[in-house]
């Protein structure tokens, strides 16, 4: 046992310094976002903070069932008062008032103390698994005697750590994907560390922050299995990551189809089939058992099943599946241009209006972003990057030919997440007549962005690759800084 610990310690020490620097950048950047973003202006933050508060105050999972007595269900007094006093403006710009600030602070600290927990205070986050919230209850308890707003900042600061972990696993993923090119690991991971939506989301209280970490960890563990082969240990690692992810947010299920593709490919390629099959069995067992236990515990504790199928992406998306044809129609239009025989279900082009612009930056409750011209500039940069990626793949086509099953697995992982979002989006659209898609729902596969940037730099060729890599880092720094300035000017000017 001690030999294993020593070996693990040595492996950690041998990790490159740039990995830790990239992780530190991501954490500090998310911390900046935690300070910049006004209270409850991260999507669904009131609900997630309510879940944490309930867990930290009672040690129990919040209930979604009918309240035992009317008036004692829903947001806690602290949660509701804070929410009610926040200045949400018509166009999103709050009206700031120092007297409101003082009065809210006084209200939150008045005697007798305000109520801190009620069943149902997790609101629409109530159907989520509890792992993130139990972890977030640590900073909550550490700041237990401070005001609600102090505790909220402590929770945000803790959540910022997940941005660092996401980048750490993104770095490890690149290390497996592009062995022998340490500079490219740095370039891709630095770009990831400065991704503004990652920083913004991780700087708030939302279980998405931990989900992104586990998505990156899953990509790393899959890439590692492609290097080492599927066996009991690699299978156990993938399964454990998947299990932790499933206990964080059921969106992790969206990665399962891609994971199945990866496992099938790994089994078919394995020299010793029995070892690979054992690995697949260990994977299924280590992922499935904790999740099934959670479903049973949740059923017993709250009397509620876990989120309906739409809740794979968000607990808000729970409408029924009306028509399979309409679903296919919607999903097609969400990704590709509408075909002549299709009914127009979506009045905008989701890949551009939502996914691309949202990735470049749309903040608050996915509500404000850059002026339109900036998105066109970003598109131009993306097109150049895409051309460089294609060039890199063409230049290394022998390697790509040898590793196409691995590439297929990554495409399947991305496709699975996209499909899950669109299935949920269709249900949400049916139920509420609103559109559901947001870029952040694709972030479980965010580590692929770091691979995109690293490959783009490689595509510049041996003479220019490091210079282009440096340029990519500078662009990412500017992207992050301008996103923060945009948010400051939106909320505080």
């Amino acid at each position: 046992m001690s030999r294993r610990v020593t070996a693990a310690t040595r492996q950690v020490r041998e990790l490159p310094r740039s990995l830790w620097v990239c992780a530190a950048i991501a954490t500090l950047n998310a911390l900046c976002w935690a300070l910049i973003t006004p209270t409850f202006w991260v999507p669904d933050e009131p609900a997630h903070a309510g879940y944490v508060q309930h867990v930290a105050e009672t040690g129990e999972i919040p209930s979604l069932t009918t309240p035992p007595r009317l008036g004692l269900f829903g947001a806690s007094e602290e949660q509701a008062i804070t929410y009610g006093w926040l200045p949400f403006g018509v166009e999103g710009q709050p009206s700031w008032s120092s007297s409101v600030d003082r009065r809210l602070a006084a209200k939150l600290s008045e005697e007798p103390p305000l109520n801190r927990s009620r069943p149902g205070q997790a609101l629409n986050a109530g159907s989520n698994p509890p792992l993130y919230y139990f972890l977030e209850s640590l900073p909550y308890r550490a700041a237990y005697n401070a005001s609600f707003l102090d505790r909220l900042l402590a929770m945000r600061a803790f959540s910022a750590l997940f941005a660092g972990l996401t980048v750490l696993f993104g770095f490890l993923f690149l290390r497996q994907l592009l062995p022998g090119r340490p500079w490219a690991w740095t370039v891709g991971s630095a770009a990831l560390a400065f991704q503004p939506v990652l920083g913004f989301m991780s700087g708030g209280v939302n279980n998405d922050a931990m989900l992104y970490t586990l998505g990156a960890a899953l990509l790393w563990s899959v890439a590692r299995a492609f290097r080492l082969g599927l066996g009991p240990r690699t299978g156990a690692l993938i399964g454990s990551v998947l299990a932790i992810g499933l206990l964080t947010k059921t969106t992790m299920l969206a990665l399962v189809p891609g994971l199945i593709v990866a496992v099938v490919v790994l089994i078919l390629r394995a020299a010793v089939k029995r070892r690979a099959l054992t690995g697949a069995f260990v994977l299924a067992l280590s992922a499935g058992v904790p999740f099934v236990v959670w479903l049973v515990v949740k059923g017993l504790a709250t009397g509620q099943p876990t989120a309906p199928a739409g809740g794979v992406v968000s607990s808000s998306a729970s409408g029924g599946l009306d028509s399979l044809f309409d679903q296919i129609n919607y999903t097609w239009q969400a990704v590709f241009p509408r075909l002549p025989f299709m009914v127009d279900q979506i009045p905008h082009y989701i890949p551009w209006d939502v996914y691309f612009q949202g990735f470049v930056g749309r903040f608050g409750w996915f509500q404000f972003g850059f002026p339109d011209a900036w998105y066109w500039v970003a598109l131009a940069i993306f097109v150049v990057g895409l051309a460089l990626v294609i060039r890199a793949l063409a230049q290394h086509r022998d390697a790509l030919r040898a590793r196409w099953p691995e590439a297929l697995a990554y495409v399947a992982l991305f496709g699975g997440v996209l499909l899950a979002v669109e299935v949920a989006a269709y249900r949400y659209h049916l139920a509420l007549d609103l559109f559901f898609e947001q870029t952040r729902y694709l972030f479980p596969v965010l580590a692929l962005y770091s691979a995109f940037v690293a490959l783009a730099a490689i595509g510049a060729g041996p003479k220019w690759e490091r210079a282009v890599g440096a340029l990519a880092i500078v662009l990412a720094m500017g992207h992050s800084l301008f996103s923060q300035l945009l948010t400051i000017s939106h909320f505080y000017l």
Partner: protein
Amino acid sequence: MSIQREDADVSTGTSGPIAGEQTLIIPLVPPVTREVPGARICFTNGGTTTVRLAGNRTPARVAANPTRTRLNDDPRIDFFAAERSSRLGLAGSVAERLPMLKAGFLGGWTIWALAALVCVVWLFAFSLIRSLDT
């Protein structure tokens, strides 16, 4: 529209006719230059048709609203600055507003702490760029 304090007008404004749906912006005279605690805001419809207050594209009350679909009616009032100032000239306001309705120990220094954090992040990033040559 009038803003009153203790039944006395602090500031008043009049809107011209508006057609269709739009945000109604009413210039106030004199401009309100400081906070008016306990203010009362009064509206009078001087026109001949009924005014309908409606509309809110702010998504925060239910969930994110990616396509800015019009949500439930939720009339509200916002106050805008009377004059345009340079962004740099508003730095003091930003420093004052940034810690508002956040943790109690934050203050005017928060913006400087934020700037210092950004500098540290950039120093880290430049060290990464330098390391690409090695």
